[in-house]
């Protein structure tokens, strides 16, 4: 079970600067005359190597956090520093570069391009990173090897199971060696076997020192992380270590 007393900010707060730092982060959506405050001033710091689940019911603001963390959306108030850079000051092109270098996305709907074989899907971030062609193929195949799909390079997404597709997506997230992996409901479209499969993969990546941020509304999934940040109505209501962290 979750230990409510384990609220903390960082394991070694004085040693390293956080990878992710939100300070008074606020986001207000305007649609005509209607205003909706999705984030009401959030403070959050995530350090290198952490495995954090952001947990909350739908409408809690967790998707907004995910979009902000992923540099897909900008804050209306407050500050977001990613790897020490203030992201709010950046323009479209610089944001694209940040997404390419620092973030590896894993989506609920996999978001693979159905016309391309697995390895071509995996190499996409490297194309935009300006990596030469021969090196891309090599690295894409290594990444697929790492997620256990070493024999599926040439398969198109339609020829793979849901779990396998999500593993291709994880390989795509890993291939550019990003600062963190940002997973948005990565098991939302998967059956229980594939869910375990993908979560085990995350455990493994965490064990190897990857920073992982996972957005979910399922407690079972969140408990695989070392730390759970509970969000409700645009505010962080709890931030705690799990049993998995103690183990």
């Amino acid at each position, binding site marked *: 079970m979750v230990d409510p007393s384990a609220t903390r900010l960082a394991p070694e707060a004085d040693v390293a600067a956080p990878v992710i730092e939100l300070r008074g982060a606020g986001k207000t959506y305007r649609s005509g005359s209607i205003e909706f405050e999705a984030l009401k001033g959030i403070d959050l710091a995530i350090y290198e190597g952490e495995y954090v689940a952001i947990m909350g019911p739908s409408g809690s603001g967790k998707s907004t956090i995910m*979009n902000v963390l*992923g540099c*897909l*959306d900008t804050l209306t108030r407050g500050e977001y520093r990613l790897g020490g850079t203030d992201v709010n000051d950046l323009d*479209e*092109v610089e944001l*694209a*570069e940040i*997404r*390419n*270098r620092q973030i590896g*996305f894993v*989506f609920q709907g996999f*978001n693979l*391009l159905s*016309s*391309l074989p697995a390895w071509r899907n995996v190499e*996409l*971030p490297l*194309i*935009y*990173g*300006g990596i030469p062609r021969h090196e891309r193929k090599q690295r894409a195949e290594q990444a697929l090897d790492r997620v256990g799909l070493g024999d599926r390079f040439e398969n198109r997404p339609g020829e793979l199971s849901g779990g396998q597709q999500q593993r291709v997506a994880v390989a*795509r997230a890993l291939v*550019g060696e990003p600062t963190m992996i940002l997973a948005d409901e990565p098991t939302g479209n998967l059956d229980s076997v594939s869910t375990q499969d993908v979560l085990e993969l995350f455990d493994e990546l965490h064990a190897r020192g990857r920073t992982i941020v996972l957005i979910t509304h399922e407690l079972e999934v969140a408990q695989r992380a070392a730390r759970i940040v509970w969000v409700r109505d645009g505010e962080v209501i709890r931030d705690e270590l799990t049993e998995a962290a103690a183990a």
Partner: protein
Amino acid sequence: MSWLESFRTSWSAVYSHALRSTLTVLGILIGIAAVILTVGLGLGTQKDVSAQISSLGSNLLIVAPGSSTDTAGVRGGFGSSSTLTIADAEALESSVNAPDISGVAAEKTTSLSLEANDTNWTTSVTGTTTSWLDVRARTLSTGEFISADDEETSALVVVLGSETADELFGTQRVVGQSVVISDKTFQVIGVLDSAGSDSSSNLDDVAIVPFSTAASVLVGGTESSAVSTIYLQASSDGQLSAAYQEAQTLLLNLHSIGDSTAADFTISSQDALVSTATAVYATLTILLTGVAALSLLVGGIGVMNIMLVSVSERTREIGLRKALGAPPGAIRRQFLIEAAILGLSGGLLGALLGVTAALVLPGVIGSSIVVSPAAVGLSIGVAIVIGISFGVYPATRAARLAPIDALRSE
């Protein structure tokens, strides 16, 4: 992301949506082929017509009886009598009064039945003088033309057009045979080379007899000295308008007419015919080209339509690419290159189809088609420009999509 990478990405998108790409290319292709063919057909017709008109003879002025005025059209003298006579033609031969006219050929034409052996053939029988061959720029395939002696003696000799000779004698040797015209037996002394046909008559279906023979034997009566047309040859191209002036002044004097607007004859030139015909066909070419250009425009709008559909269909792909680090420029470039690929392949295939059709069709429809390199080059250029310019809007829209909205769309 380099241009080469953008091109690879675009190419794989074009390739993986083969049906959609084919249909788009087809739209452009038809437009381009239509432009090349219509321009080619227009130019070809223009060329055919001027070739036909100049085959009538060069530096030629044609004097016809009757006047053409703006209001009354053609005034044909009184009754059926012609206002031009052989005396007019003889006067025009004078090197004093008409120094710039080098040749005169009067024609007296009636339609008569020719009989040879058991064959009957009705054709236009033309009485004319020895200079006709030169003035009308015709040549003989066999035998000889009417001589001054024949003219002098109103000899019963005839020169046949190639088709007339064919109809009457088939494959037999023609020169030396006899032909009966109006109950008189004529001897065939020559056959003309083929000259095709002009807009009003078949130049190969004629029978030429000496003018004096036509006047005395075939027509007779008060009509005997009348001529239906006088052909004048100017001494050179540059002297055509001088020759025109001389002929007009001389004829007005002979006919005692003071006011040139009241003239009872009309002088026209080949040049005028050529330029009129050229102008008509040039207008036609512009019209056809306009129609073809419209179809090209429709093709272009087709490309834009497909690209817009492509953008909305692939919103998720665009969102994903942006999430993975594609800057707006790379997305815009990808869609622009896609549009350019479609435009260019449509242009090239259309040019190929147009040129092939231009080579094959003349054999089928019997009218020549001139492939104008300018039209081919221009239409390929236009196809690319259309592909790109109609691709700009969809590409800009794609590049502007916010990545989260794009990712969420279904």
